[in-house]
C-alpha cells in the first residue's frame, strides 16, 4: 500500500514537470486551421485578407481615403509566394512595430465594442508566423507615421516558445512617395488559383464593399488591376459602446467585476454597461437579493450567477444603435456598379436592431442582368463589417436567408432548396459591433434568429423592387412582341378576306389601315 502511494506521487511529480503553459504561438503552430490556414490556397488568401483588413481599418481610424497596393509575387520555388500589402494609413510608431507584427494577440481592438474589420489582433501576426513556419523567412515591415518622421524598416521573426518578437534587422529607410503608411512583405507557402474562392475574387469584393478605397492589385502574372474609387465619401466613423447586459456571459461578468474600479455593484452596472440606469441597476440587485451597495470585488461565483439570472429577468432597453456604420444603400450600389456591369441595381439598408444585446444592421444590394451569366445560379457575396466572406458559404446564415426566400414571388426561378437561378448578384452586408462568426477563421455568420430575420426582410425588400423591374421589362417585351404581331398578321387577315370575298385591292388595303389603327390604339 505504502509503496503504491509513493509510486503514484512519483507519477504525479513527473507529470507536473511536463506540465507547462504553452505559448499561443505554439498553439497556433499545431492548430493553424483554426485561423484559416488549413491549406496552401486558403493560407494565401487569409494572409492577404488579414493585411488588407488591417490597412482599411487603419485608414478608417485617421479618416483618410485608402490607397492600397496588393501584390503577389511568385518565388523560384513554385509553392512559395511573397505577399506585399501597402497602405496610406497612420503608420505604426517604431516601438510598437515588432509587437504588432510578431506577437500574437497583441492589439487595440480586442473585446472593444466597436464595429471594425479585425477584432482579435491575431490575424496579421498569425500570417507572419505562418510565413515563418513554412519558409523560415522573416517578414519585412516598413512604416512611417508622418512627414517629419523617418520610415522604419524591420525584419521580424516570432520567438515561438515565448510568443515574443525577435528583431532580425532594423534600420531607418527613405520612403519618398509616402508621407504615412505601412508596407508588409511576407513570404509564405501557398497556392494561387482563380475562381470563387480566389484572392482575385476577394479583392474585387473588397472593392465593392469599400468603394471609398482605391486598390491596385498585382496578381502573380504581373498584370496589374486597378480598382478605382467609386466615392470620395468616407464611411461614418463607428462609435464605441459599452456592452449591453443581455449580451454578457457569466464568465465575462465575473471577470469584469474583478477588474472594475467601481466601489458598489450599482455603480458597476451603471458605468460598465450601456442602457443601465440606477433604477435598472437597483432592480437587478433586488431581483438577485444583493444590496446595491455591495462591493463587486468581493463577489464569488454564487453572487455572480444570481446577478446573471436577475439580468435575464429584468427588462432593459435595447442598446443604442447609432454606433454602427452601414455602407449605405447609395454607396453599396455604387460599389456594385463600378465592378459589375448589370442592367438593374437595387439596395436596401435595414434599420439597426439587436441580437443578444449586440447592435447589428443588415444591408443588401442586387445587381441583375447585363453581363451576368443568365443560365447559372445567383451569386451570393457575403460581407461582415465590409470584409468579404468567401469560405463556408453553406454554413452561413446569410446563405440560409437567401435559400429561404421565395424567389418565385419576384419573378426569379428557384429549384427546391437551391439558390435562385438568374443573372443575379446578391450582396449582403452585416455590420455589427460583434459579428457572431461560427469560428475564429471568421468565414460564416452564426444562425441567430434575429439576424436571419433581418436578412430575409432585406432580401424581400430588394426582391420586391427586382420583381417590379422584371415585370416592367416583361411588359415592355410583350409590347414589342405585340407590335411585331400586328405588322406580321394583319396582312394575313386582309389577304384571307380578300380571297374569301374576292375584294378589290383597295378594300384589302383599307382593311389593313383600319385594323392597324385599331390595334395600335388598343395597345396604349
Amino acid at each position: 500500500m505504502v509503496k503504491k502511494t509513493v509510486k503514484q506521487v512519483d507519477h504525479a511529480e513527473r507529470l507536473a514537470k511536463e506540465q507547462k503553459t504553452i505559448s499561443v504561438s505554439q498553439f497556433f503552430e499545431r492548430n493553424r486551421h483554426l485561423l484559416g490556414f488549413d491549406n496552401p490556397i486558403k493560407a494565401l488568401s487569409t494572409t492577404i485578407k488579414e493585411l488588407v483588413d488591417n490597412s482599411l481599418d487603419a485608414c478608417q481610424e485617421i479618416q483618410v481615403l485608402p490607397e492600397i497596393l496588393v501584390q503577389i509575387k511568385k518565388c523560384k520555388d513554385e509553392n512559395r509566394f511573397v505577399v506585399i500589402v501597402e497602405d496610406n494609413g497612420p503608420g505604426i510608431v517604431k516601438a510598437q512595430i515588432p509587437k504588432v507584427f510578431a506577437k500574437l494577440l497583441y492589439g487595440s481592438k480586442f473585446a472593444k465594442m466597436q464595429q471594425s474589420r479585425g477584432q482579435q489582433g491575431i490575424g496579421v501576426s498569425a500570417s507572419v508566423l505562418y510565413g515563418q513556419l513554412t519558409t523560415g523567412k522573416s517578414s519585412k515591415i516598413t512604416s512611417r507615421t508622418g512627414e517629419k518622421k523617418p520610415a522604419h524598416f524591420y525584419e521580424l521573426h516570432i520567438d515561438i516558445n515565448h510568443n515574443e518578437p525577435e528583431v532580425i534587422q532594423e534600420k531607418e529607410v527613405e520612403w519618398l512617395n509616402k508621407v504615412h503608411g505601412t508596407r508588409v512583405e511576407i513570404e509564405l507557402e501557398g497556392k494561387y488559383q482563380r475562381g470563387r474562392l480566389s484572392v482575385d475574387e476577394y479583392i474585387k469584393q473588397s472593392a465593392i464593399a469599400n468603394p471609398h478605397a482605391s486598390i491596385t492589385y498585382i496578381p502573380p502574372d504581373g498584370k496589374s488591376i486597378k480598382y478605382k474609387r467609386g466615392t470620395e465619401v468616407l464611411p461614418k466613423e463607428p462609435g464605441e459602446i459599452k456592452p449591453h447586459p443581455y449580451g454578457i456571459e457569466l464568465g465575462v461578468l465575473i471577470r469584469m467585476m474583478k477588474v472594475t474600479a467601481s466601489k458598489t455593484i450599482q455603480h458597476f452596472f451603471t458605468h460598465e454597461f450601456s442602457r443601465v440606469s440606477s433604477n435598472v441597476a437597483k432592480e437587478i440587485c433586488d431581483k438577485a437579493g444583493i444590496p446595491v451597495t455591495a462591493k463587486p470585488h468581493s463577489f464569488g461565483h454564487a453572487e455572480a450567477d444570481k446577478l446573471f439570472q436577475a439580468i435575464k429577468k429584468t427588462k432593459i432597453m435595447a442598446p443604442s444603435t447609432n454606433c454602427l456604420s452601414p455602407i449605405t444603400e447609395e454607396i453599396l450600389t455604387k460599389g456594385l456598379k463600378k465592378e459589375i456591369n448589370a442592367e438593374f441595381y437595387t439596395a436596401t439598408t435595414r434599420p439597426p436592431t439587436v441580437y443578444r444585446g449586440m447592435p447589428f444592421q443588415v444591408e443588401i444590394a442586387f445587381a441583375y442582368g447585363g453581363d451576368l451569366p443568365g443560365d447559372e445560379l445567383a451569386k451570393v457575396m457575403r460581407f461582415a463589417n465590409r470584409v468579404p466572406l468567401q469560405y463556408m458559404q453553406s454554413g452561413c446564415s446569410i446563405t440560409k436567408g437567401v435559400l429561404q426566400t421565395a424567389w418565385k414571388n419576384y419573378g426569379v426561378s428557384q429549384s427546391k432548396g437551391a439558390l435562385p437561378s438568374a443573372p443575379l448578384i446578391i450582396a449582403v452586408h452585416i455590420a455589427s459591433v460583434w459579428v457572431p462568426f461560427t469560428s475564429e477563421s471568421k468565414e460564416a455568420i452564426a444562425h441567430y434568429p434575429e439576424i436571419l430575420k433581418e436578412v430575409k426582410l432585406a432580401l424581400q425588400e430588394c426582391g420586391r423592387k427586382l420583381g417590379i423591374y422584371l415585370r416592367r421589362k416583361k411588359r415592355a417585351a410583350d409590347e414589342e412582341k405585340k407590335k411585331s404581331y400586328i405588322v406580321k398578321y394583319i396582312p394575313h387577315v386582309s389577304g384571307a378576306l380578300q380571297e374569301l370575298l374576292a375584294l378589290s385591292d383597295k378594300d384589302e388595303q383599307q382593311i389593313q389601315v383600319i385594323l392597324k389603327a385599331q390595334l395600335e390604339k388598343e395597345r396604349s
Partner: protein
Amino acid sequence: MSPKKTVEVVRKKKADASSKKTLTAINDSATDIFKKIMKKKSPEMTFPIRALNNVKYDPKKGFFELIGKIKTRALNVNTVKAFAQTLRMMGFSKELLEANDIATKREAYYVSKNWGDARFKEQPESDTVMDDVEAMFRINREQLGFIPEEKGGAVAGQLVVVDKDPTTGRDLKIDCTKFGSGAYSVPTSVEHLKFETKAKFILAIETAGMFERLNKHGYWKSANCILISMGGVPTRACRRFIRRLSDDKNLPVYAFCDGDMYAFFNIYRTLKVGSGNAAHLNEFFCVPRARFIGITPQDIVDYKLPTHPLKDVDIKRAKDALKNDPFVQQHKEWQKAIQQQVKSGQRAEQQALAKWGLNYVLDKYLPQKLKNNKTWLP
C-alpha cells in the same frame, strides 16, 4: 385522266348541295367580319367551347351534348395570329369546295407553309384551327373538304355492305364473310352505305390482334355476329359506321377492350357518347346502345388474369374521370369499377386471357360474358 380525278367527279355530283351550304356559311361569316372592320367595329368569331366542361350527358339521349358555353375570339393584338389563321383556313376550305377537291389534315398543314408568317409550326396547331372552323359552322370537317388521315376500322362477319361503284355509280355488294384472313375496311365517308345482315350483334374490338384471332377461328360464324376492329380510339368514320349499322339493323353493340383507363374513357366512352372535343358532332358520331362487356375490373378477379401495375397517368386519368366526366358521373357502376381498379392498382389487357389457352377467349370467355349481362358495364 388519273383514276383519282374520276372519283372527284363522282364526289362532285353528290357533294354539291352540302358544299353550297358550307360555302354560303363561310361567305356569310367572312362578309360579317369584313363589314364590321369597315365600320371600325371589332370583328368577332364565336365557337362552342370544345371540352368536357361544356357538355352534358343525358342517358336517355345517349350522347354528350353541348351546353352552350361559347368562346368569342374578338380581333385584338393577342388574337390576331389565330384570327388570321382561322380566316386562312376558311379560305382554303372554300378553295377545296369550289374545286371539289379534298385535303388530309396533314396536307392542310403543309399548305399552310405558303401562308408566310401565318403558317403553322406543327400539325396539332393546324388541327386545332381546323377543329375551330368545324365547330364554328357546326359541321363535319369532311363537309369542309378535309379528311382524316387514318382509316376507320376493319370489318368481318355476317354482313353485306352495299356501296356504290365509284366509276359506274352502280350498287356494289361487299360480302364481309368473303375476306378470308383479311377484312373489309370502313371508308372515310359512310353516309351512303346500305346493309344486309342476319347477325345478332356487333362486337367492337379494341385491338387488331384480338380481331385477327376471332376472325381466324371464324368466331363470327359460331356466334353469328359482325366483328369490327376499332384499332384504338375509334375514328369518326368507324363510330358512324357502327352507329348506322346498328340503327339500320337494330343490332346490339358490345365493346370488348383492354381493362384499363385508356380503354374505358378514351376508347369506349368516345364510342358510346362521343368526345368533348367534337361535341358539336356527337349526336351523329356516337353509339349510345354500346355496352362494355370486358375486360372489366371484376373480370381481372374472376378470371385471375395476369396484370400490370397502374401507371401514374392511369391514376390521374381515373381521378379526372371521377371528377370531370359527365358520363361517369351518370353511371354509378362505372364509378364503382374505377374505384375497384384504382384500389387494386392493376390493369389487364384483353390478350391476357391467353394465359388460359389461346382460344379460351372464344371458347369460354366471350360465350360466358355474352350470356350474363350482369357482368357488363353501361
